[in-house]
């Protein structure tokens, strides 16, 4: 009554024994084993507990369709839950643990759920735990989650590394069984760039368990020879352990390569898993066919397996799943398994054939029960026998394994991932792939050809057709000679009548026949509804075994064809893909690129505390010894700029140079204010609108020559404005003669602001920067003392006398150092984003806190900038629409708390005094707020309905987040120097 390792046979390396552990128990396997074959060789039939009822479950399959044998591999942070034992490659030291059981796999408390199963039918939770509603989240769901489930995700940081990679080929062959190998050989010989990918750790697919000889040699030897030939072709790339999981636009396929999942200690030089994007001119699906389980009473007991899996374990791994095996089949495949087992000396207890008549021949001496069916199985934690019924006569047959074969379904998932629905073939009693165009074909068993010679021929033919289609010449395929094979036909058998215990359809999610019946009865009979109502096919195996039987049962229950029921939708991923692989190297600080300002080193040397600002890291403030809070540093920086001079890095602003005879006309249309008459050597503030009349971006634009401008954008929209301008130039006005390009990275740019700014700038710049020679809004190329060429702009964001000096980026740090040196005698300080923000709020200057996509120029006090003289500009037409000119629009105002020590935060809303907070009573909001060291109190900018008419009025600043209400006075948004006297010093 045991599973055991056969004395000979299989493709495992018997000279390379491996020790591994399962639930702490040490076991022996061989190189070439999967964890599943290793477990079976050690007579480990029980490997897990089911999701809902905690029923004992054993290995069912020998591949990725496995619903039961899910284990956790590895320890600690490296733990990998829900790994299929049938796929996991055995290696020395592998540590595997069973899941969803407590306290142990053998004695599982949760199995009490099985006794409650009459109550735990489909939809049970939804119907039962509906009231009270709040209890679902807090009480019911946590308990259910604890009872039902699979492996536990690890909460520790994933220590593994992942990467992504691109590949390109003429032909991608998916699956290296007989069809895929012949296709790769044909295409490779014709000179195509071929990628052959297979999910297994060894190429060959079904050939590795095949007993029919090819060219007089074992099929595995044919596969090995084919691989040797393919390896020698430079135009062929072979990929093992690589699952092609998705088909995407432009014939790009996603694939997951398990580079180091099969080693105990991964090398740091390689990723553990690699995500491939394979751009294929043509692709061939050679994924074979999946054997179907049979839905009979007690079909989930450990020991009940797919017949093909029994053959694979015996032929490929040299493992017998039992000493006495019964076969339950509806076609010839069961007889092939019986023959395979007999050949290995494994006793076949009986072949139970659902068909009353069949031409198939059983191995000599094997009992065949035609027209019979299994109605129950015996045993507790593993199978000990079955109950067979024929014409009302029941008989118990002792056995320790059952091989079930319910026919075959082509594996067509990938071909149906982009919307095409599978088609029902009455001849094949299966769903087949529809025609999905010339880029992607289906061959071999995946196309419903189940005989070995037919697969080999089909692979060769389809690859040749692709080669010819792509312009490669081919010679007739040299097809190997294969012996005769039995007729692969079967009769559909969806439901085995007379079940005496639960007949499972979906093993992993514990869905049985009566759940589907309940779904149908309650109006959820549509295959997509039934899936969600019963959870059939929603487990990690995504219904690879259960999907077709659910369709067949739903059809049979309604007396209609499976064609009328259809399948659920096939979507990526074919098998689970870890999030780590999808992220690749883009994690932690590498989730996005970091942009480095040319003045970064200067800022760091001056004590900058950096802050994320889009992709940039910008100095937030420059802490000095003794300053205990950031506010102390910021207040000092602001006061220094107002009293002396400060230096700020403004390199991150977008800079776009515009050339050409129509450059001025172009800018005149892009900005809402006029630019045609901007004199050479002058800068002008510009406001860019969207077509809908809302402000898009602002910045200064300088005319360096008659046909040469430099536009500055905000840091945030540097890319967006460039794209917008490209759109305008290429699509809206292709007739304008101009060209432009971004020079954002070419220049290091420094703002030097404060009443003493001129002294500092003049110390470095050769040209005269006096107020007379270089007045407010002057802009021109200058020469620094020593000869360095730069650009100087007299523009101010702080409201102080200010210059912006630009030098080629590499010189930025040296020039900034020199400015600091020159300014030392004048009390210069470096200032960061926080001080910049305080300075501009004090002056009522806007940023994207105000220009948030909802404001018009008039809302921010720039209504007069809208040029009525211009024939057209972007945003002109829609600026006049009702609503954008309404009198009660929210307008930008200043806000000062009545009690001086009260603070204000951005995001708070404005209410009339005494008004109840409500959407209806909302009067506006605070957009920016800061502590003004000049005024000695908090100040804010905000938007208030008809705000400019309401200076002097008191409003309530209502901060729901902090539960605060502050009374404030509405005032002009310009708090400091409203006459702009300081600009023109």
């Amino acid at each position: 009554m045991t599973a055991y390792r056969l004395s000979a046979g299989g493709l495992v390396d018997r000279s390379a024994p491996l020790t591994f552990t399962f639930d702490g128990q040490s076991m022996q396997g061989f190189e070439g084993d999967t964890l599943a074959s290793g477990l079976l060789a050690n007579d480990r039939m029980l490997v897990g507990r089911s999701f809902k009822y905690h029923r004992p479950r054993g290995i069912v399959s020998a591949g990725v369709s496995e619903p039961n044998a899910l284990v956790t591999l590895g320890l600690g942070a490296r733990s990998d839950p829900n790994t299929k034992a049938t796929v996991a490659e055995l290696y020395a030291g592998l540590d595997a643990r069973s899941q969803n059981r407590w306290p142990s796999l053998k004695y599982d408390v949760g199995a009490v759920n099985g006794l409650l199963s009459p109550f735990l039918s489909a939809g049970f939770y939804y119907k039962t735990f509906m009231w009270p509603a709040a209890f679902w989240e807090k009480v019911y769901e946590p308990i259910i989650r604890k009872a039902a489930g699979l492996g536990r995700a690890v909460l520790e940081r994933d220590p593994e590394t992942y990467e992504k990679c691109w590949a390109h080929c003429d032909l991608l062959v998916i699956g290296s069984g007989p069809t895929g190998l012949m296709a790769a050989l044909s295409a490779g010989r014709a000179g195509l760039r071929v990628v052959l990918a297979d999910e297994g750790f060894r190429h060959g697919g079904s050939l590795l368990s095949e007993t029919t000889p090819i060219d007089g040699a074992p099929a595995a030897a044919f596969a090995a020879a084919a691989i040797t030939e393919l390896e020698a072709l430079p135009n062929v790339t072979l990929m093992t352990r690589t699952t092609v999981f998705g088909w995407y636009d432009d014939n790009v396929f996603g694939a997951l390569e398990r580079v180091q999942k099969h080693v105990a200690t991964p090398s740091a030089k390689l990723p553990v898993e690699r995500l491939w994007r394979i751009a294929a001119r043509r692709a061939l699906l050679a994924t074979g066919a999946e054997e179907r389980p049979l839905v009979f009473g007690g079909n989930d007991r450990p020991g009940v397996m797919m017949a093909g899996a029994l053959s694979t374990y015996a032929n490929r791994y040299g493992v017998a799943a039992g000493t006495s095996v019964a076969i339950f089949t509806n076609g010839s495949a069961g007889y092939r398994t019986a023959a395979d087992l007999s050949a290995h000396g494994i006793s076949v207890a009986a072949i139970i054939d659902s068909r009353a008549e069949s031409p198939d021949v059983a191995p000599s001496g094997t009992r065949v029960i035609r027209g019979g069916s299994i109605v129950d199985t015996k045993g507790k934690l593993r199978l000990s026998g079955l109950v067979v019924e024929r014409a009302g006569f029941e008989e118990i047959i002792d056995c320790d394994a059952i091989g079930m074969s319910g026919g075959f379904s082509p594996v067509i998932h990938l071909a149906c991932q982009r919307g095409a629905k599978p088609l029902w073939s009455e001849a094949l009693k299966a769903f087949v792939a529809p025609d999905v165009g010339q880029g992607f074909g289906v061959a071999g068993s995946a196309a419903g050809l189940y005989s070995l010679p037919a697969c080999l021929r089909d692979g060769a033919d389809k690859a040749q057709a692709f080669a010819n289609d792509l312009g490669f010449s081919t010679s007739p395929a040299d097809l190997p000679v294969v012996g005769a094979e039995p007729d692969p036909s079967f009769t559909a058998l969806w439901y085995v009548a007379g079940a005496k215990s639960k007949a499972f359809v979906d093993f992993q999610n514990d869905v049985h026949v009566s759940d589907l019946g309940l779904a149908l009865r309650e109006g959820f009979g549509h295959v997509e509804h039934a899936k969600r109502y019963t959870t059939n096919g929603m487990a990690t195996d995504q219904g690879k075994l259960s999907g077709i039987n659910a369709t067949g049962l739903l059809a049979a229950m309604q007396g209609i064809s499976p064609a009328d029921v259809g399948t659920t939708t096939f979507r990526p991923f074919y098998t689970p893909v870890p999030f780590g692989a999808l992220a690749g190297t883009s994690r932690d600080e590498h989730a996005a690129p970091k942009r480095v300002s040319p003045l970064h080193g200067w800022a760091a040397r001056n004590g900058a505390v950096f802050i994320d600002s889009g992709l940039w890291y910008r100095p937030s403030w420059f802490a000095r010894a003794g300053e205990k809070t950031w506010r102390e540093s910021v207040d000092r920086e602001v006061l220094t700029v107002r009293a002396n001079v400060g230096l700020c890095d403004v390199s991150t602003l977008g800079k776009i140079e515009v050339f050409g005879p129509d450059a001025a006309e172009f800018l005149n249309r892009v900005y809402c204010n006029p630019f045609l008459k901007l004199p050479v050597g002058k800068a002008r503030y510009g406001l860019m609108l969207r077509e809908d009349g809302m402000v898009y971006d602002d910045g200064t634009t300088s005319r360096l020559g008659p046909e040469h401008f430099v536009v500055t954008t905000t840091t945030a929209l540097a890319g967006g404005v460039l794209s917008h301008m490209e759109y305008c130039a290429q699509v809206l006005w292709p007739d304008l003669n101009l060209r432009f390009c971004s020079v954002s990275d070419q220049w290091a740019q420094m703002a030097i602001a404060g009443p003493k700014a001129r002294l500092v700038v003049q110390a470095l710049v050769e040209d005269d920067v006096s107020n007379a020679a270089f007045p407010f809004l002057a802009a021109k190329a200058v020469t620094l003392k020593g000869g360095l060429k730069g650009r100087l702009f007299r523009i101010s964001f702080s409201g102080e006398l200010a210059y912006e000096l630009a030098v080629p980026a590499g010189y930025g740090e040296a020039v900034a150092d020199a400015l600091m040196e020159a300014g030392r005698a004048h009390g210069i300080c470096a200032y960061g984003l926080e001080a910049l923000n305080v300075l501009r709020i004090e002056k009522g200057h806007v940023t994207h806190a105000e220009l948030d996509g909802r404001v018009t120029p008039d809302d921010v006090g720039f209504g007069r900038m809208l040029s009525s003289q211009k024939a057209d500009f972007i945003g002109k037409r829609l600026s006049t629409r009702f609503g954008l000119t309404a009198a009660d629009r929210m307008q930008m105002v200043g806000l000062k708390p009545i009690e001086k020590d009260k603070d204000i935060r951005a995001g708070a809303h404005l209410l009339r005094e005494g008004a109840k907070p409500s959407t209806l009573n909302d009067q506006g909001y605070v957009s920016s707020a800061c502590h003004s060291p000049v005024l000695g109190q908090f100040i804010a900018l905000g938007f208030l309905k008809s705000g400019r008419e309401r200076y002097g009025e008191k409003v309530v600043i209502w901060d729901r987040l902090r539960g605060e209400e502050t009374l404030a006075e509405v005032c002009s948004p310009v708090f400091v120097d409203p006459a702009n006297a300081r600009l023109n010093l």
Partner: protein
Amino acid sequence: MVHQYADRHTLEGLVPADVSAGADHLAVAARQAIVVVLAAPGQEAAVAHLLASDEDLSARFSAPGEWLVISGLQTPELLHQALAALLGDMAHCIDQSHGRVLLRLTGLNARAILAKGAGLDLHPSAFSVGQSANVLCGHISVNLARVGDDAFEIVVMRSFADTLLHDLRDMGRAFDLTTAFLA
């Protein structure tokens, strides 16, 4: 007052100066002249022809009517002057020597390394010597040119160079990629 300013490479301190190049090597140009040439509308073909006719110029196509012209020998000023003289009114020339960083990746595994970041087919039949393209390398937009069978040059915006260097080293770690400044 200081009159001579040091030109600091953005990767200074991140790339060793004197590492002997391995089989697969990433060289960072210590300085280079890079000028963007924008053909005036209608002059695209004429500009392309002139750029191709001068053997001293390495012009990388980067967009319709737009090239990155690179010189490892000339100063930015001289290259800019030479191009302005060559092209006259037919094109606008913008110095980007400080705004870009030039990297040269060589070795038998150069293609395999780049395939980890760039979706472009780098097979010689699809991307031959002399071809260039603007592509994403991971998150970062670069101009990639094939300058030899196993040699590629990458031009990247200065502010992204630090991250790109990190990414390329990561992409090359399986092949023991070495990096150094190009003398």
